[in-house]
């Protein structure tokens, strides 16, 4: 029985031999890497790191797009008994410096020139780092820093090491224990510096096994790894599940080609945050807006049938014969093609997690026959703790706990979790660990309750739940997701807790709204300009009214404005997984919120912009506030 990832790798290599373990698109061609080749790279890189001085106390940081070398680097580190940490490559300098200096990082593995340049910029602050290892040499020929090393050169060191110490690797891997910390994972959603969760091999392997028990994947299945490897969801699928089941990981050529590559591979399983699913729906809706009237009417008919079918299945009723026939036709003519275009045709199951997904998006995917399921989990629980079972999907719930996981509701309504997958603790942060882990129960910070069928319902982050003026408690996310179903709305922040009514601050979607404006002959220049066009306000107003129609009266949006800038993770307004940092946003846009609850129709705002090249500018604009008729 294998206890660690490297041990699992040895096991799978024995089991599958020359079959493809990884697949990478390079030069426009998919190239397979077999299990023995995979193992060889891990072994050589591990030995290379050890001959450079890696000890089990050290940490290796990896920054880059998803590539086989990313996977090699993590497993090589773990094989040597050390721990790895993935860092989001779009992270800001201060965050990266904090993570690297606080975790005792000795080696940084990076992808290319872009990241090397970033590291060089902060090099003076990176105490303790000995080598920076890159795997794409393009543009790095003339760099002479002595601490820079090329990935294959490290492997060459490993080769030399092997000649002197044969069989060292196998012995070392066998020494690995299941309680060893495998990875450190940054947790999102907090303000200030990120917390670093220590996750053991046992945590991750348990998690993967539990998930595979409910939703098995076969060795011949395919998975596309295109979300940041630093994210726990990707760690779960690409390491914990893949190493246990032996299915193939596929790496896209470039982040920009991910969607096209996804279509070429046709994965059997997919785990993405809501943003990806929302984008897919927007993509379909925008394309349909552009198509001919005939195509549109066929599509509308098929979607009507699809929604009927989806609703019947949600209610666990049996569809009548006529609906079955109509659905068969809709599937045959539209849905199969649609799924093929999106690359979802072979999906056995798809998961969404990280934040709540709007019910409209959910219904959409079930209507076209994608088995999309909500999961609930967090970094501290190594990923998934609760999920929908096949055929038992209710879109306002997150399903039932996975086997081996105990869930109970704390006295204050907080969701508490207990299982073998619960993390070890925060790295060098005893205080935070004690606040979160009490008697083995993980305090999630989310509020929730169980419904009559034993499904968990997550209301929201406990501190985000708002009490409306009529006394009902309501989740702002629910309203926001209603708004975000529109392809023209990218982000929305809803306020209302301490106020007499609900208001919203909305980000338009530049791409889709821009396209809409072009087809309606509306000239615009910048994002700010487009967002303040009266036509755009009318467009969004329609969407807000549509959302309002589904909401109880107290939760209806009464005033809204279109924000002059996009909320951005670089400005700390969003987390790296694109969740709104509510506290920070309401602090930063304090004047706007005050104006939303005022009488004025317009609001003057001034903002300072820092461009990428360091220039700064001040921008003055007038924002319009739209009032909706209430009574």
């Amino acid at each position, binding site marked *: 029985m294998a206890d660690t990832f490297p041990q699992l790798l040895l096991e799978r290599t024995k089991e599958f031999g020359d079959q493809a373990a990884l697949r990478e698109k*390079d*030069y*426009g061609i998919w*190239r397979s890497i077999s299990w023995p080749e995979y193992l060889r790279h891990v072994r050589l890189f591990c030995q290379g790191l050890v001959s450079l001085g890696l000890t089990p106390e050290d940490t290796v940081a990896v920054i880059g797009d998803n590539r086989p070398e990313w996977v090699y680097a993590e497993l090589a580190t773990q094989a040597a008994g050390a721990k790895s940490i993935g860092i989001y490559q779009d992270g800001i300098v201060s965050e990266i410096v904090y993570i690297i200096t606080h975790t005792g990082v000795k080696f940084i593995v990076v992808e290319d020139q872009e990241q090397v340049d970033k590291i060089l910029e902060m090099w003076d602050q990176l105490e303790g780092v000995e080598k920076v290892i890159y*795997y*794409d*040499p*393009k*543009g790095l*020929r*003339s760099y002479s820093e002595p601490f820079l090393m*090329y*990935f*294959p050169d490290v492997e060459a060191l490993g080769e030399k090491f092997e000649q002197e110490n044969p069989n060292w690797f196998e012995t070392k891997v066998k020494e690995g224990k299941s309680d060893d910390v495998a990875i450190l994972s940054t947790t999102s959603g907090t303000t200030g510096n990120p917390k670093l969760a220590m996750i053991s091999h046992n945590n991750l392997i348990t998690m993967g096994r539990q998930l595979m028990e409910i939703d098995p994947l076969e060795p011949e299945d395919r998975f596309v790894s295109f979300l940041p490897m630093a994210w726990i969801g990707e760690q779960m699928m690409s390491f914990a599940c893949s190493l246990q089941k032996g299915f193939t990981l596929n790496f896209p*050529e*470039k982040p*920009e*080609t991910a969607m*096209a590559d996804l279509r070429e591979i046709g994965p059997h399983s997919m785990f993405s945050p809501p943003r990806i699913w929302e984008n897919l729906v927007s993509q379909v809706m925008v394309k349909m807006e552009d198509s001919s009237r005939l195509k549109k009417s066929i599509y509308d008919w098929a979607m009507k049938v699809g929604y009927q079918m989806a609703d019947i299945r949600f209610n666990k009723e049996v569809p009548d014969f006529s609906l079955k026939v109509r659905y068969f036709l809709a599937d045959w003519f539209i849905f199969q093609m649609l799924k093929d275009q999106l690359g979802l045709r072979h999906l056995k199951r798809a998961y969404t997690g990280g934040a709540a997904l709007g019910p409209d998006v959910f219904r959409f995917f079930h209507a076209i026959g994608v088995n999309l399921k909500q999961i609930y989990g967090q970094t501290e629980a190594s990923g998934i703790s609760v999920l929908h079972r096949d055929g038992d999907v209710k879109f306002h719930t997150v399903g039932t706990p996975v086997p081996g996981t105990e869930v109970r509701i704390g006295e204050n309504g907080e969701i508490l979790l207990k299982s073998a997958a619960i993390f070890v603790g925060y790295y060098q942060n005893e205080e935070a660990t004690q606040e979160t882990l009490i008697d083995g129960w993980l305090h999630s910070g989310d509020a929730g309750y169980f419904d009559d069928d034993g499904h968990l319902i997550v209301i929201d982050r406990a501190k985000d739940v708002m009490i409306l003026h009529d006394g009902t408690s309501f989740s702002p996310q629910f309203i926001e997701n209603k708004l975000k179903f529109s392809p023209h709305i990218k982000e929305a922040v809803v306020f209302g807790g301490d106020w007499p009514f609900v208001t919203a601050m909305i980000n338009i979607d530049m791409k889709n709204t821009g396209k809409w404006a072009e087809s309606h002959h509306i000239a615009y220049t910048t994002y700010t300009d487009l967002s303040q066009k009266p036509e755009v306000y009318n467009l969004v107003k329609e969407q807000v009214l549509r959302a309002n129609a589904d909401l109880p009266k107290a939760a209806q949006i009464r005033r809204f404005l279109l924000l002059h800038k996009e909320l951005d993770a670089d400005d700390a307004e969003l987390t790296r997984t694109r969740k709104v940092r509510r506290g920070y946003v309401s602090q930063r846009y304090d004047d706007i919120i005050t104006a939303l609850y005022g009488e004025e129709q317009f609001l003057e705002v001034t903002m300072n912009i820092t461009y990428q*090249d360091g220039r700064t500018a001040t921008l003055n604009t007038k924002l319009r506030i739209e009032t909706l008729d209430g009574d």
Partner: protein
Amino acid sequence: MPRGFFHRLNSSPLDLGELQLLIDNVSLSFGGVQALRKINLTVNQGEIMAIIGPNGAGKTSLLNCISGLYNPQIGQIIFYHDGQFELTSMKPHQITKLGIARSFQNIELFKHMTVLDNLMLGRHVHLKSNLFTGGIFWGWARREEVENRFLVEDIIDLLEIQSIRKQPVGTLSYGLQKRVELGRALALQPSLLILDEPMAGMNAEEKEDLARFVLDINEEHGVTIIIIEHDMGVVMDISDRVAVLDFGSKIGEGTAEEVQRSPEVIRAYLGEDYGPL
């Protein structure tokens, strides 16, 4: 597979720093209009040479003389490759065979063909299969196609245009089309790459990207580059030497800093200084 480059995109047999192009006393006139007057200029292998000057100064005319589109009445242009070639007496297609590639001020691509096809077309001077062998597409012709595709993929990787590989060029943004045009010129495996205002009409971000690609081509592959550019910021950042033309004459040459200080250059750009009134 490490993602370095398998192909040398530079076909010049010269060593770095050797004299590659000698423009000797070149004059060109159209009827009574004197487009170039007694231009002398040298370009060494591995250099980025920028040519600047106000509108109508004769920059493009000079490039057209090098690529054989115009024949100067006086003077000679000598290009050193695997021998010594006098360009003024050669036809444009013969000059192309020497590896002198250029991109144009306006986009000259086949709009309805994909990016990949446009780049493959840039390889045509290197293709040996004819209509017949290419039609059968077996044996040598097939191997040749694969070999050329491999090289084109190197260019796609260099210019980071993987995501638009199969898209028709006409559907792309202006900045991307310019990038593809650069790729088409590179597909020739140039010994000398001539870029005529590659950044005209681009926004700051597109300019920055393209400047980086030009530097990559020069640093990674050692391709000599002659570039006409108006944005002095870009010229300052990337060029090794700058030549300034005005009314068909060369009025300055040197590093970017030297040229910027030169009184003649300032006069050409800012006009005559009449002193205090």
